[in-house]
C-alpha cells in the first residue's frame, strides 16, 4: 500500500528505481486517492487514466497546455478546448517520463487568490475544507497537500504559486522570470507569468525545476540558466546574509500568528549560522500592488482578446459579428476576467496610457532598483508569503480589494522579476504559515540551499492534520 500522503517525489523516484513500484502503479494509486478524497476538495478538473512514462506522476495546473487533454484555464470560454500541442513544460515533463495524473483547478485565467474564481467551482484546503487553498494554483497545492499528486506545476503571476503553497503547507517556487518557458501556457500577464513547482520538499522543488527550466526557442523571453540546478543538501546557513525588509514584515494586515511563525524561522536562520539584519523596501511594498494591478490587467485585456468565439471555444449568437463577440465573451468570461479586462482596457486607452501603464512601468523600474540595492547588502530577503493563513471560503469573494491584498507581500519581488521560494514555517490557528525567501535573479540554487536547511531545521509536517 502506497501512502500517497507522505510520499515525496524523491521517495517515489527511489521506489521506482528500486523496482518496488512501477510508474503505472503509482499513477493508479494517485487516481485511487483522487477518487477517495477529491470529491470534497475538487482539486482536479480532469484526470488522465492512461499512465505514460516511467517516472514520478505529476499534476499540471489547467493553464498548461497538454496535447489531447482538455485545457480550460478554469474558464467556460475554453470549455472543451483540447490543445493540438504540448506546452514546452508539459513536453519537458513528458521527456522526463513523468506520467500526467490530471489537470488541476484554478482561478479563471489564473486571476485570483483563492481558486474560488474557477468557472468549475472552488477547491477546498485539505487542512480545513471550510478554508480556501489560496490561488490561483489552488488545485495544484490542494492536490499535493492531500496526497493526490506527488508534485505539481503551478503558474505565478502575482503570487499564484507562492501563496497557495503557503496556505497548504507546501514548498512553492516562483522562478526568475525568463527561466521557464511560457510557450503553451494560457497567458494572463505575459511580462509576469512564470510556471514553477509546488512540492512537499525543497529537494523536490529543485528536481522539478531542473526538468522544466532553461532556454526555449519557442519563447523569446527565455534564457539559458547561468549554472546547472543543484539539488540542495546543506543543513546550515553559514556565510549567508539574510535581510529582513521592514515593510514586507510589518505590513498592515499581517496576522500576529503569521508574524510569530516567520519570526521564529528568522531566529532559526540565525541559529543555523546566517547573519541576519534589517533592511528596507519602502516603495516596493507601497507601490508594488497598485502597479501590479495596472500592468497585469493591461496585459490580460490584451491576452484575452483572442477568445472571440471565431476559431475555438463556445460561440454564442450567430448574427452580426459585434453581437457574437459580445454575447460569446459575456457568457464565456466570469466576473474577475471581465473586471480585469475593463481595468486593463481603460489603462491602455489613448490619453491614459502614460498616466497608468506607462507610469506603472516606471515604478516597476524603481521597485527593481530597490530590490537590487537590498540584495547588494544581503544574499536573500525573508518575509511572510501571505499576510494571513488560509481564509474561509466566501470571506473575500465580495470584496475584490481584500482578495487582491492576499498577495501584497508576494507581488513586489515578482514585479522585480526575482525568484521567490515559499516554504512552510509553522502553524497559526492550526493552519500553515509560509516563509518567503527572495533572492537575486537566477539565485534559485541559493534559495534551494537556504530553503532546504531551514526545512530540515523546522521539521514541518506537510501532511494536513485532518488527514494524518
Amino acid at each position, binding site marked *: 500500500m502506497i501512502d500517497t500522503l507522505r510520499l515525496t517525489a524523491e521517495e517515489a523516484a527511489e521506489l521506482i528505481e528500486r523496482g518496488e513500484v512501477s510508474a503505472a502503479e503509482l499513477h493508479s494509486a494517485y487516481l485511487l486517492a483522487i477518487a477517495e478524497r477529491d470529491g470534497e476538495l475538487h482539486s482536479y478538473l480532469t484526470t488522465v487514466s492512461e499512465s505514460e512514462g516511467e517516472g514520478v506522476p505529476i499534476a499540471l495546473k489547467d*493553464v498548461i*497546455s497538454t496535447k489531447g487533454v482538455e*485545457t480550460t*484555464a478554469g474558464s467556460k470560454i*475554453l470549455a472543451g*478546448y483540447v*490543445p*493540438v*500541442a504540448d*506546452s514546452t513544460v508539459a513536453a519537458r515533463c513528458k521527456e522526463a517520463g513523468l506520467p500526467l495524473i490530471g489537470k488541476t483547478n484554478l482561478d479563471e485565467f489564473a486571476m485570483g487568490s483563492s481558486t474560488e474564481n474557477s468557472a468549475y467551482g472552488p477547491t477546498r484546503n485539505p487542512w480545513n475544507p471550510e478554508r480556501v487553498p489560496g490561488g490561483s494554483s489552488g488545485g495544484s497545492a490542494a492536490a499535493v497537500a492531500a496526497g493526490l499528486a506527488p508534485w505539481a506545476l503551478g503558474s505565478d503571476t502575482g503570487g499564484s504559486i507562492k501563496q497557495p503553497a503557503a496556505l497548504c503547507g507546501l514548498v512553492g517556487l516562483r522562478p526568475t522570470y525568463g527561466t521557464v518557458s*511560457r*510557450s*503553451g*501556457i*494560457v*497567458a494572463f*500577464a*505575459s*511580462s509576469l507569468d512564470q510556471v514553477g513547482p509546488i512540492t512537499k520538499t525543497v529537494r523536490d522543488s529543485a528536481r522539478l525545476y531542473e526538468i522544466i527550466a532553461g532556454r526555449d*526557442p*519557442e*519563447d*523569446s*523571453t527565455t534564457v539559458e540558466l547561468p549554472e546547472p540546478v543543484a539539488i540542495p543538501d546543506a543543513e546550515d546557513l553559514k556565510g549567508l546574509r539574510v535581510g529582513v525588509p521592514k515593510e514586507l514584515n510589518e505590513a498592515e494586515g499581517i496576522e500576529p500568528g503569521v508574524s510569530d511563525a516567520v519570526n521564529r524561522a528568522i531566529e532559526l536562520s540565525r541559529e543555523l549560522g546566517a547573519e541576519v539584519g534589517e533592511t528596507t523596501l519602502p516603495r516596493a511594498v507601497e507601490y508594488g500592488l497598485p502597479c501590479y494591478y495596472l500592468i497585469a490587467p*493591461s*496585459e490580460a*485585456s*490584451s491576452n*484575452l*482578446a*483572442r477568445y*472571440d468565439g*471565431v*476559431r*475555438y471555444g463556445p460561440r454564442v449568437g450567430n448574427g452580426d*459579428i459585434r453581437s457574437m*463577440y459580445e454575447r460569446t465573451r459575456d457568457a464565456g468570461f466570469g466576473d474577475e476576467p471581465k473586471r480585469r479586462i475593463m481595468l486593463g*482596457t481603460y489603462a*491602455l*486607452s*489613448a490619453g491614459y*496610457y502614460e498616466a497608468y*501603464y506607462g507610469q506603472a512601468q516606471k515604478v516597476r523600474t524603481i521597485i527593481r532598483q530597490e530590490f537590487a540595492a537590498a540584495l547588494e547588502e544581503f544574499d536573500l530577503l525573508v518575509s511572510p508569503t501571505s499576510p494571513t493563513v488560509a481564509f474561509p471560503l466566501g470571506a473575500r469573494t465580495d470584496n475584490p480589494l481584500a482578495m487582491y491584498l492576499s498577495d501584497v507581500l508576494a507581488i513586489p519581488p515578482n514585479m522585480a522579476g526575482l525568484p521567490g521560494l515559499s516554504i512552510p514555517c509553522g502553524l497559526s490557528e492550526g493552519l500553515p504559515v509560509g516563509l518567503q525567501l527572495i533572492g537575486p535573479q537566477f539565485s534559485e540554487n541559493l534559495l534551494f540551499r537556504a530553503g532546504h536547511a531551514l526545512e530540515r531545521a523546522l521539521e514541518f509536517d506537510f501532511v494536513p492534520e485532518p488527514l494524518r
Partner: protein
Amino acid sequence: MSWEPVIGLEIHVHLKTRTKMFCRCELEYGAAENTRTCPVCLAHPGALPVPNARAVEMTILLGLALECEIAEHAVFHRKHYFYPDLPKGYQISQYDEPLCVDGKLPLATAEGDVAVGIVRAHLEEDAAKNVHMGGAAGRISGADRTLVDFNRAGTPLVEIVTAPDIHSAEHAKRFLQMLRQTVVELGISDAEMEKGSLRFDVNVSVRPEGSDELRTRTELKNMNSFNLAAKGIDREIRRQIAVYESSGVVEQETMHFDPGNESAPPLRSKEEAQDYRYLPEPDLVPLEPPRELVERLRAELPELPGARVRRLTEQVGFELAEGLVTSGRDRLFEQVGGERREIANVLMNQFAATGVDPAAANPEELAKLIEARDRIPRQAFTEALAASGDPGFSAERYLGDGQITDASDLEPLVEQVLSANPEQVASYRAGKERVLGFLVGQVMKETQGRANPKLVNDLLREKLQP
C-alpha cells in the same frame, strides 16, 4: 487661387520569406484555405511569437535602400482591434520605435530629383483574409456570412510611410513604381498587386500654392493599380479644390476606391477615432540588430533603380530611362549594343509588347536583330522579338527570312555584279543561259543571302536584254 496638392503614401509590402513572421508555417500563395496554419497564427492559448530573422534582415535591407537609419533598439507593439481576420485580437506591429526611420527616396523626374522623405519603414504581420459569402462581389455589405482563411495571417509585412512630399498624382504614381522596382530588385518581395503582396493607401490634401500648411486630408484605400491610383488622386485633388473654392470644408474621411465605377465613395466619414491601445509586446524582446549585420547588408545593396534612372537619363532622356528601369528592362538595355535611343525605344515598345522576360533575352542576338530591323519585314521583326527569349534564339534565322524585296535596293547591286563579270555577261548574251545562275549567286552573296532570288533573277534578265 492656385492650389498645390499634398500627397503622402503608406505602402504595405509582403516579404518573400519562406515562412511566416512569427511561426514556421510556410507561405504559399494560392494554397488551399486554412492549410498553412498552426497554433501561433491561429492564436491558440499560450502560443508565442518567434520573430523571423530573415524578415528582419529584409526590412533592414529595404531601410538601407531607402537611406533610413536602422534603429539600434526597435520594439514590437500590439495594436488592438476586434475583427475576425485578426486572430489574436491584436496585430504585432511597430509603433514608436520602428526598425527603420528617417530616410528618403530621391524620385528622379524630368525636372530633376524630388526628394521624398521616408518617415519610417516598419515590420509587422498581415491579417487573415475574410471571404464574404453571398453578398455582391465579395464585399461585406450584403454578405450573409463570412469565412476566414488564415493562410495569410502572420505573413511578414513591411509598412513604408512617406512624408507628405509628393505634389502630383503623376509623381505619386512614379514613386510607387520606383518603390516597387526597388523591393523587387532587392529580392525581398514579389510586390504583385493582384496577389495583394503590394498594397497602398494615399493621403491627399490641397493647400494654396506657396503655403506650407497641412490641411485636412482624406485617405484613399484599396486602389489596385498605379494608373487607377493616379486617376483617383487627381479626382480627389479636383474634388477638394472644388470644395474649398465653394467655401466648403473638407472632412477627414476614408474613401474606398471602387475600380468598377472609378468613383471613391466615403468609407468612414469622420472616422470614429480608433483607439488601438498600443502595448509593448511582452512576448518579444526588443530587436537590437548588430551593427555588423547592418554593415554586411549595406555591402549587399545593389545599384538602386533611382541611381540607374539618373545614369541612363544622360543617354536616352528621362522618360525612356525611367521606363526602362521601372519596367525592369534597363539591365538588358545596357547589354544590347547599338544606337542608345533606338535600343531603348525598341525595348520599351515592340519588345515590351511581346511580354518576353528581359532576363531571358539574349542581348547579342537582340543587338543583331535591332541593327537589321530596317532591312527586314516588320512582321519578321516582331516574330523575332517574340522569340528572343527562347533558349538558343538566333537572329540569323530571321534575318535570312528578311529578304530584300525592293527592286530599287537591288538594282545598284545587280549593276555592280554585271560590270564586275563582263565574261559571263557576254556568255549569257551569246545564248548560254545557265550562266544566269552564277550571276544570281553573286548578287545573293553580296546581300548575304537576303535578296529575293526571283527578283534578282528578273532584274538580271531585264538588264541582260541586249
